[in-house]
């Protein structure tokens, strides 16, 4: 199914400012024979250009929610709309192509390819999208420059510090100019100095480029930097506060 043909059983076109809508989204996992409900009928919207933090204790369902928002997992119940289009009926290939074009990912463990240089890691999403070698190289170099790693383009991940690796990951997420960046605990493996630097960098990208950022965190100090914070508790939204 193409994204230009949204499902007809639900409202198809949402206001332009709303990037993502979750409607009664639930996610159940099976632990052997035992069902575990990680999320219960979540309903909330993410607006274009927001800098949003999802926070809460361990096991509250933050990562599950991020996976659903990032379209790398499918809800057991409910629907997710991206830019007004229902994502539920997309085939795996369509969803993958959609992610590649619209969503960037920053992982807690950086998830960089150890055999590739920083530049090549950043070129990877462009290569997957079929961008030619020289253009990909130019864009990746520019993305690395934006995160302050111009001098490290040829360094492999094992030669970089944790903060530098996460900056490479940010460059990789942003190089395809996505509309949404998902960051699941992007600072969990970093010290406080690097954590703040990464959050500041993400914030700067959000302001400068209008890219929507959604990230999870345990660190309450980082919440001071966000527009909006959503508290998740036992798979439900406990509180949804705008701070700006």
């Amino acid at each position, binding site marked *: 199914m193409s994204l230009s043909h949204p499902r007809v059983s639900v409202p198809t076109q949402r206001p332009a400012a709303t990037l993502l809508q979750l409607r009664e989204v639930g996610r159940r996992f099976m632990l052997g024979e035992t069902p575990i409900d990680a999320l219960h009928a979540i309903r909330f919207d993410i607006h274009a250009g927001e800098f949003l933090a999802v926070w809460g204790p361990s096991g509250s369902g933050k990562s599950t929610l991020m*996976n659903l928002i*990032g379209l*790398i*997992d499918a809800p057991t119940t409910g629907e997710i709309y991206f830019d007004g289009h229902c994502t539920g009926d997309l085939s*795996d*290939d369509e969803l*993958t*192509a959609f*992610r*590649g*074009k619209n969503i*960037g*990912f920053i*992982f807690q*463990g950086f*998830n960089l*390819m*150890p*055999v*590739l240089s920083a530049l*090549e890691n950043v*070129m*990877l*999403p462009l*290569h*997957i*999208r079929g961008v030619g*070698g020289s253009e*990909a190289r130019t864009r990746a170099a520019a993305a690395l420059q934006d995160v302050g790693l111009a001098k490290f383009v040829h360094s492999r991940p094992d030669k970089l510090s944790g903060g530098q690796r996460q900056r490479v990951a940010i460059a*990789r997420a942003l190089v*395809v100019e996505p509309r949404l960046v998902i960051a699941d605990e992007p600072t969990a493996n970093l010290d406080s100095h690097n954590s703040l630097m990464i959050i500041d960098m993400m914030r700067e990208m959000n302001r400068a480029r209008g890219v929507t950022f959604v990230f999870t965190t345990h660190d309450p100090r980082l919440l001071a930097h966000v527009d909006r914070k959503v508290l998740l508790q036992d798979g439900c939204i406990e509180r949804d506060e705008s701070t700006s």
Partner: protein
Amino acid sequence: MNTLTLALRGLTRNHRRSIVTLLAIAFGFAAISLFAGYTHNIYSGLARQSIHGELLGHLTLSKRGMSTAGKLDPQRYLLTLDEVARIEAALQHESQITLIAPRLAFSGLVTNGRASTIFIAEGISPQAMDRLQENMLTEQEARSGMYDRLAKKLDPARESGVALSAGLVELLHLHVGGEAILLVNTLSGQANAMDVTVDGSFNTGNAGTNDKFAFVPLALAQSLLDAEGRADRLTLLLEDVTQTEAIRDRLLAKLSAAGFDLEIATWQELSSFYRQVHGMFNMIFGFIFSIVLAVVLMSVANSVGMTVIERTREIGTLRAIGLKRSGVIRLFATETLLLTLLGCGVGFLLTVGVRYGINGSHIAYTPPNGANAVPLLVDMDYPRILLTMVLMLAVGMLAAFLPSFRSARQQIIDALGHV
């Protein structure tokens, strides 16, 4: 950066495992290529031995039934002087035919005056004998000196000069230049004896015939059998051995149309030894090939399986950032393709090196039923080397498909959560 680069980098991730797999492929490839080269050398050697050494030529023409009923009633099945002349005339414009040699086979007793033994002889003109033996040895074989005694020679100037097999000479305590007496039955059944001179001795290369065989000039054979101008068959040499079957069919049709009731046998049909050895080596080759392919299959499957497990998170990441399932399969397929190609490349170099070593070390062995030692030589059998590479690539891809397919089907969140 493209898939090829990515795949190449992937191979360096666990270089020790990649090298072990590559070496398994390389050694397997080299083993198959060397054995293929050895059998190729055996086949071509046997072919040359049959065509030129045993003087079978490429095609043998005889009257229909000569090879069966003709053994008991040769008078009826021998070609006459007129028939030989007419056949030669019919074939004289065939540009592919380089030699037509009338032959007359017979048997009898040979004696030194004190002891006698049986012999099997071929009557053939000395000139035809020389022509048939051209190209019997390769340069390398000629250089080895091991085949020197295989050459048979009749002196065209000596009507009663014969060549006897080395075993026959030894058995009767004869010597080159000495005298012997041949005793045979003529076509009409009368006993006929003739003094001959031993002009030379030769090794048949076969223990079963080395104490029985003799070559005599055709005229002498005809005289002994009282079969003036007659021949039991015509041996043809062709320009191109690969055309043997096609030319046989064409000649058969042409001679049938000219009113001859002939049968034409190819050298392969006449040389049962060649067919048996060919069949046996093909069987052994297939067996070795299957074992090596199975080893390669398991080695590549194990390597890709381990790689896929190790790189589960990486695959999850690639899938998250937009790589389709087919892309994951393509990535691992490319890695396997590269690994197999590199393995075959290293295997080819190993083949060249080991072949050089074997051929240069002058190893000799006596084959089963052989009368003399032969050098162990390995050829480069390029068609089978190419076939081996293609099959190894196919087997490698097959081995890689299942683990990479399973990996591509994995849920992204499971892959990302893999520890």
